[in-house]
């Protein structure tokens, strides 16, 4: 038996690959024993099917009181999705006890019913087959028992290392807002007075916190309310796409952008590289980071000291005047990539603009020890280098990947324990890897940016086993055997005294009355000077920004996010270096040319991608790619740029002369010179006021009523959709929501390179103007459900037909795959299964939505208007006699409510009102397709003083 004969490679080679083999080979088994064990395993498999029940008692349903599971009927449980500490409320839809879809929690202040794309993609993370399946010790599989034994050394008590007072014990976490985790840290620090807690995030917001703390003389959280803002200036801001509370900000922002629905606000943006905030702005000014700091200095002078702006960019005067003119309704916002002094100055400006209490307010920060410990990662690494760290608990962060120096000093720590969801870089480098339970598997809690707390209830039994950070810390503090639920319950004992309150909080997904208190703290009169980082020089500036989809790299193994086209570059499966058009011209670089990027002695080799509208002299690299141990999906995708992050020195790029295929989902030339402006209609507010219908359907002289085939759908219900281009910020959440809801397969990099991506819903990006400073537009594009659908007439087998409610339906079983329908679709929203893409996916079949067919090889597919949701609503209406509102997956997730869906025959339906807007138009009217999806044209509100 212990023979590896017949296998390629020698025994040592195999042992290296599968370390468990060594142990197995050391204990030879005879055949009899083997058969016995096999039989036992078989019987055990049967026993394992007997679910011991939900962890730590029951879940509490948001919609019905724990009735058990009814086949075919989804259950919905509230929880929260936590990124870098901050929570967004979610509702997880279960089918037969398995989570299959995430929706936003309308009752949660940071969600308001929407989610970001990370929360949508959490389903893939949860079912990720590469998650840790058990503890590792020095890379060898270990039993949980061994982990407990190892950690017992830390336990307080006469026989443990705790006797030494915890000197040399360090804890490293990301930002913590969880009161339970905070209490656990406190407990550990209490048990080991010598221990030190370090906080570090790869994509940190320390400067924001420090800036607010300095401005108000105490830790504070400044939260804007964009609904009240008339004029805003966003300086390299992430307000709409990733700042804590960005979903709420996006909702508020969009609420002021449609001139038909109310007064428009005006947004100025200054930034080095296009962001969603910049694209949404009425005026987007381009400035390198150094120039942005200089602008902050000039703004401070103008707004704080009432100096007239002199020097600086020519637009500054007009912007300052506009801000001053809207005193009390004006706001300035700064992104997290700038120093604390700059943030302090911005807060002072906002105070000077008089908007406190209206356009922004100052609150108690939601974080656990918001500014205090201030024992940074570099302090920790210094101590590690000096051998002062005896034991290090690394809780759900990945510094080995993200900080090159950390990897070098980690071996000096005798006992390092990494709590990680997968055997990633840090988990492998640490002595112990303890599996971290997914947020859907463990009890916990977290706060939103405004302090509102949510209890994370487990959505399922752990798929692979795992534990939570709080449990580990409590264990180390000597509190053994307390279930995680008890830990959470304990923390909220006061707040949720009765079991009824507790259950109500679980069901609602928010704990009432936990929002942060408003602070009365006055702005500090002493303003630190804002010093520009080095004068503008001829050198290149390298900006390393978090990847919009992989974030700091944690989502690298998520195929949905890898294949999600980045909002502007539309690149997928990789992170080309974004270079400005003028650099491309001067260096003769084209998209996909490989270059060597070097900072000092650090180098990275990667392709370039020309980013229109990027500041001259700035190159932008996206962090989070190039993971070594993310998992099978994410390993080696793209280039790791973290090694360049702490390098200091001149930035250089040199072409290698090679070309790299960069997967990208939009292939047309970057400029709108190619795009008939008719597709994305847009105009100014001034023009709109003169003639409200100047962009709408009324202009479509070419739209003919003539039709070859008469088609009257017949049913009383007629489904239709209106998409407000004024609201759409291009965040891509709808694409992932659609993918999750409709089992849309991921095809992989090679197939994207062959242009075979499968997204039913895509966000088209259009540029207008010059490459150096273009106007950018986003347009969600999905099946238009044309009343005169060209796809239907050309299908020889009638596999795509109209239903009585006006849906253009696809009959997968009938499709023979002529693909003629796709040829004839002017909007090109049909996708073809060239291979059995769904079958090839790594996600387990149980993770799919059971209400949506999984499509086979050789058939066409496309958006169905979420026909399964329509069917559910119809069933509910038949049963209860009350018409239920149908919400499509894309509509539900949209933070800005850009998508309105409903019955256009219903006089009270929102969609009917939206379609009556003078801005409403259909794309490609001359095709005579009469689309049921219409768009509300984009209106911008530029400052007349800057219009030349």
């Amino acid at each position, binding site marked *: 038996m212990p023979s590896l004969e017949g296998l390629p490679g020698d025994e040592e080679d195999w042992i290296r690959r599968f370390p468990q083999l060594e142990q197995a080979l050391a204990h030879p088994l005879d055949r009899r024993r083997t058969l016995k064990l096999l039989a036992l395993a078989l019987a055990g498999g049967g026993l394992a099917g007997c679910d011991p029940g939900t962890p730590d008692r029951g879940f509490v349903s948001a919609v019905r009181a724990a009735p058990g599971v009814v086949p075919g009927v989804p259950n919905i449980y509230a929880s929260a999705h936590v990124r870098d500490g901050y929570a967004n409320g979610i509702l997880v839809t279960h089918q037969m006890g398995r989570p299959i879809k995430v929706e936003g929690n309308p009752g949660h202040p940071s969600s308001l019913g929407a989610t970001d794309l990370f929360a949508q993609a959490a389903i893939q993370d949860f079912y990720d087959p590469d998650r840790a399946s058990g503890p590792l010790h020095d890379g060898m599989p270990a039993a949980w028992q061994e982990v407990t034994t190892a950690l017992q050394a830390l336990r307080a008590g006469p026989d443990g290392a705790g006797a030494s007072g915890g000197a040399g014990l360090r804890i490293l976490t990301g930002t913590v807002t969880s009161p339970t985790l905070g209490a656990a840290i406190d407990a550990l620090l209490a048990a080991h007075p010598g221990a030190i807690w370090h906080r570090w995030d790869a994509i940190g917001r320390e400067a924001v916190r420090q800036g607010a703390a300095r401005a108000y003389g105490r830790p504070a959280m400044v939260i804007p309310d964009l609904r009240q803002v008339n004029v805003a200036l966003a300086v390299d801001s992430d307000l709409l796409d990733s700042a804590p509370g960005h979903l709420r900000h996006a909702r508020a922002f969009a609420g002021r952008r449609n001139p038909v629905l109310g007064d428009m606000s005006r947004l100025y943006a200054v930034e080095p590289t296009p962001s969603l905030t910049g694209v949404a702005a009425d005026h987007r000014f381009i400035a390198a980071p150094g120039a942005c700091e200089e602008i902050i200095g000039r703004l401070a002078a103008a707004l704080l000291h009432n100096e007239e702006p002199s020097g600086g960019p020519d637009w500054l005067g007009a912007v300052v005047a506009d801000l001053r003119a809207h005193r009390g309704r004006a706001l300035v916002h700064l992104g997290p990539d700038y120093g604390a002094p700059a943030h302090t100055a911005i807060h002072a400006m906002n105070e000077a603009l008089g908007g406190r209490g209206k356009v922004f307010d100052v609150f108690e920060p939601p974080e656990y020890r918001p500014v205090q410990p201030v024992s940074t990662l570099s302090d920790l690494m210094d101590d590690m280098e000096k051998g002062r760290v005896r034991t290090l608990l690394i809780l759900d962060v990945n510094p080995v990947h993200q900080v090159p120096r950390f990897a070098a000093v980690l071996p000096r720590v005798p006992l390092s324990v990494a709590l990680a969801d997968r055997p990633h870089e840090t988990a492998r480098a640490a002595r112990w890897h303890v599996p971290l339970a997914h947020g859907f598997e463990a009890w916990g809690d977290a706060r939103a940016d405004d302090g509102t707390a949510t209890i994370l209830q487990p959505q399922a039994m752990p798929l692979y086993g795992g534990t939570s950070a709080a449990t580990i810390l409590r264990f180390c503090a000597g509190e053994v055997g307390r279930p995680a639920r008890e830990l959470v319950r304990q923390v909220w004992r006061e707040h949720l005294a009765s079991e009824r309150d507790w259950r109500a909080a679980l069901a609602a997904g928010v704990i009432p009355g936990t929002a942060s208190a408003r602070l009365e703290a006055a702005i500090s009169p002493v303003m630190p000077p804002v010093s520009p980082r080095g004068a503008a020089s001829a050198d290149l500036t390298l900006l390393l920004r978090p990847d919009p989809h992989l974030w700091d790299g944690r989502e690298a193994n998520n195929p949905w996010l890898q294949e999600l086209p980045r909002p502007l570059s539309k690149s997928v499966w990789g992170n080309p270096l974004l270079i400005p058009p003028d650099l491309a011209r001067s260096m003769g670089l084209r998209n996909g040319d490989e270059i060597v990027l070097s900072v000092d002695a650090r180098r990275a080799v990667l392709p370039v991608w020309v980013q229109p509208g990027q500041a001259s002299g700035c190159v932008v690299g996206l962090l989070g790619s190039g993971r070594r141990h993310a998992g099978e999906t994410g390993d080696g995708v793209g280039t790791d740029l973290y090694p360049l992050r702490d390098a200091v020195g001149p930035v250089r790029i040199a072409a290698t002369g090679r070309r790299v295929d960069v997967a990208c989902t939009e292939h047309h030339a970057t400029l709108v010179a190619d795009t008939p402006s008719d597709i994305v209609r847009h105009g100014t507010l001034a023009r709109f006021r003169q003639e409200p219908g100047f962009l709408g359907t009324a202009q479509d002289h070419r739209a003919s009523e003539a039709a070859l085939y008469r088609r009257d759908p017949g049913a009383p219900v007629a489904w239709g959709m209106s998409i407000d281009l004024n609201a759409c910020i291009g965040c891509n959440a709808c694409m992932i929501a659609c993918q999750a809801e409709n089992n849309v397969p991921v095809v992989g990099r090679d197939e994207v390179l062959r242009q075979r991506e499968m997204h039913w819903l895509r966000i088209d990006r259009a540029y207008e103007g010059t490459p150096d400073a273009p106007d950018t537009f986003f347009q969600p594009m999905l099946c238009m459900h044309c009343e005169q659908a060209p796809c239907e007439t050309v299908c020889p087998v009638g596999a795509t037909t109209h239903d009585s409610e006006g849906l253009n339906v696809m009959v997968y079983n009938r499709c*023979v795959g002529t693909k003629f329908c796709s*040829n004839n679709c002017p909007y090109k929203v049909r996708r073809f299964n060239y291979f059995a893409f769904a079958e090839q996916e790594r996600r387990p079949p149980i993770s799919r939505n059971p209400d949506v067919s999984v499509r086979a090889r*050789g058939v066409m597919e496309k958006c169905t208007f979420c026909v399964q949701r329509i069917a559910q609503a119809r069933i509910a209406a038949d049963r209860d006699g009350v018409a239920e509102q149908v919400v499509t997956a894309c509509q539900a997730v949209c933070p800005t409510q850009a998508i309105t869906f409903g019955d256009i025959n219903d006089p009270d339906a929102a969609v009917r009102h939206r379609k009556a807007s003078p801005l409403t138009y259909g794309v490609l009217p001359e095709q005579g397709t009469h689309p049921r999806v219409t768009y509300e044209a984009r209106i911008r509100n530029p400052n007349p003083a800057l219009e030349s």
Partner: protein
Amino acid sequence: MSAPAVIAAGETAQSVTERICAVTLREGARPWTPLWWWVAFAVSLGLLGMGVISVAWLFYAGLGIWGIDWPVVWGLDILNYVWWIAIASGGTFISALFFLLGVEWRTALNRLAESLTLCAALCAAIFPILHLGRPWFFYWLFPYPNTMGLWAQFRSPLVWDFFAILTYVLASILFWYFGLLPDLATLRDRAGRPGQRVFYGVLALGFRGSGRQWRHYRAVYAVMAALMAPLVVSVHSIVGMDFAGSAATGWHSTQFPPFFVFGAALSGFAVVLVAILPLRALLGLQAYVTARHIDVLGRLFLTSSLCVAYAYLMDAFSTFYGSDPAERTMFVLRVFGLYAPVYWGTIVLNIVLPQLLWWRAVRMTAPLVWLIGLGVLVGMWLERFQIIVTSLARTQMPSSWGQYTPTIWEWSLLFGTIGLFLTTFLLIVRLMPVVAMAEMRAMLRGGVG
């Protein structure tokens, strides 16, 4: 200047029959199959084998092995289909149309031309099935009663196409076979070896040459010719409507049906010339396929090239006469963009080179005519690439623009069908009379047909 004769001087009914039968029955001086045939057959079989492998892999792995993608969902598959079906037109034009017109030079050519039609139509017919995502359900295009209660969707040009092709292939086979009957009877009567007697005897279906049989034969042949002539126009019009019936940029054009008929005539005459020039020498048919035939074919060839030129011109004209900016953008990109070499290759090969045929000296130089014919076959292939690929790569939505690069599996399929074409054609050449003996005899007697 008198035109050369359509048959060499001194040929009689007796000599025609003997010469042609000798080619097929291989009796007399050279009773073996010539070496060139075996070599050509081996090469053809090799190509055919490649095609079989390509199809097998296609069925196993799926359409993804081809280079077609999201915007360009049709590639070499449909291109080859249109190319082959156009090639198949030549035989029908010569055989049916000129039969009805009563032209005498048709007689020596019709058998070979019809055989070419048959082989090309077979090659064309496999692509509509292969291009399906689920080819095993191809019969769903046919309106047959079924328990699913489903029916073909008759508004789709693909259904029209399915019927047109089916009709055309069946009619071509019948026309070809029916025309063969008297000659098969002749072969049966002259065959020496028992195997040959049985083979041709069974195929001749008891044709004895009685007056009654000839009367029926002539009537039916004339009716079938009268059916075939419009059929060749309808099949190519419907192939044109596969495109014109859709709304895609560059396809949505009312001139496509006649345009495709012109193109079919051009490639039909081209393939007849390309096949007949070497065969005439190899089979020793100079006495029957004379300079007169080559001259006439050359003129027809030139005429159809001019027709195609007119269609190209109208295509450009209607693009700019119309008001659709997407059409214009697409056309400009077609002429000057990434695929510009394809466009200009089409123009040079289909329009410019055939103009040499204005000169009689060129028409009389077989190698030149052969090369021009081959050039047109390539040119027509490029034309289809241009129509199908450049249109789909540049549609109304710039966000869905794309490219298309065929893979080795698409090329191997193209060459595989060339193998199928050559294999079947060589078998026909070897086993069937290459010239319609009965019609030649009738012509020598002074009547046509």
